[in-house]
């Protein structure tokens, strides 16, 4: 796909998904207090 080897799409794609999921989890669970 896109002229790229599968391993490039998989490793980069999975890393991005994990990063977004982690930041999404942070946003949903952090309550904070002031």
């Amino acid at each position, binding site marked *: 796909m896109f002229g*790229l080897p599968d391993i490039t799409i998989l490793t*980069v794609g999975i*890393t*991005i998904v994990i990063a*977004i999921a982690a*930041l*999404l989890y*942070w946003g949903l669970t952090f309550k904070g*207090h*002031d």
Partner: protein
Amino acid sequence: MAADLTTIGVVSLYFLGMLAIGAWTSKKIKNTEDYLVAGRSLGFWVFVLLMIGTVCSGMSLLGVSGLGYKVGWPTIWEQIFVPLSIGFCVIFFGVKLHNVAKTSGYMTVQDYLAHRYESPVALRSLAAVAGIIVSLIYLVGQYTAIAIVLMWLFEIPLWLALLIATLVTMVYTAIGGLYAVAWASLIQSFILIIGVIVMAPIIIFYAGGFTHVNEVMTSINPNLVMPWMPSGAFAVPYIFSFAILLMIGLACAPHVINNVLSIKDVKFFKWAPLAAFLIYGAAMFLLKFTGFAGITMVKEGIFKLPAVTNAQDYVILYGIQYSIPTIAFWGIFAVIVLAAVMSTTDRLMLTIGAMVSWDLYKKVLKPDAPDKTVLLLSKIVVVLSAFGTMILAINPPEMLAILIWMGIGVMLSTFAVPLLAGLYWRGATRQGALAAMSLGLASSLVFGFLNYFKVVFAGVDFAKIPLHFSFYAFVIAIIAMSVVSMATRKTAEKVLDETQTGWYISKQ
């Protein structure tokens, strides 16, 4: 190329806009707290774009596409871990520092280190001096980037290019403090993001499209489209250390981490990491792809890069020049690069001002100094640091070029361990922090020099070490912190409770 009247007009308009922000925000400055932490009043988007603007330097624009041009897809991890540094800074440093700062009134991160490690003079001074040195070095690197663009665009001498950029940035930073820096960053980051999102696809399209670019890279060298190189720089171990360097090194850089003290409400930290990652990540990916497009354009003879040592840093400039023939766009592009450079240089100058006037003068040399004097000194230091680094950038000594190259690596090795251990490990002591900071700084310089000069010592070829040089210094700092802390007297429980030290991010 020589700029026409449209380009000069666009760039002049941008400069005037920045000066207007300085004039407007200067009215908000009543005391040092307003000047250094914007009265702790920044809203969500101003904070998010301030963080993006601070992290995204001039070298991000020129260097990201340049590295992509040189090494290809194995460098793509930079586009994930640099945007993640904002999230790392907010989550692992920001929440606690903000919460403690509410009661302790921290103006700088050195305030936290002095409090947490019960070291109002020694550690504060070491952290401030180290912070000033690395910030100055980083600042000179930024001016080098600004000079490349202005000289390319206007065909003016280096000294004049530097003088123009320095004067504008210095004036609005000196008069408006962090208010000016934050509001300027809001505009600058907006320009930068929109500019990259509009212009990068045009360059990629001009190069034949995304798939064609990847196919050409494969035909030149199949490793250029792999996620890592088979050995050496950008092999898997190196990428691991590179990720640590970018994500943690940038997060704890003095000009980045101090931003967390200026936010109005800790609740803004909830979605700031994701917002920053998505916005900045998208722009950075596109920038990297322009570097890849440059490989195709050079291979197919569309343009040739200049015969200089850092030729790859010019790839985006040439890409724009050849794919967007409308002259007006060049002016807009110049503003994009200027925005990227100035959004970092202004924050660096202010950080240096804070460390000199607040940490060294007010907190160490003259504790009874009135607020007005501290405020005035902050402004004077901003002006001096601007001109001092400008002079260094006009004729940089060879040693300086090496130090700029070491930049973030030195920040990681010096600040990451004392900050992380201070926030999360109740066993970390003052002596441990002093040892970690001084050994981290010294060893990063040693490893950096050995690596840069390709030294072979005791059978080790330092040109071919498998990890980024800063990672070794980072590990030395961890060992120093652990060993010395375990051998020395613990910090008082009262201080540990006041500074919310422990294995948690936030007590909810």
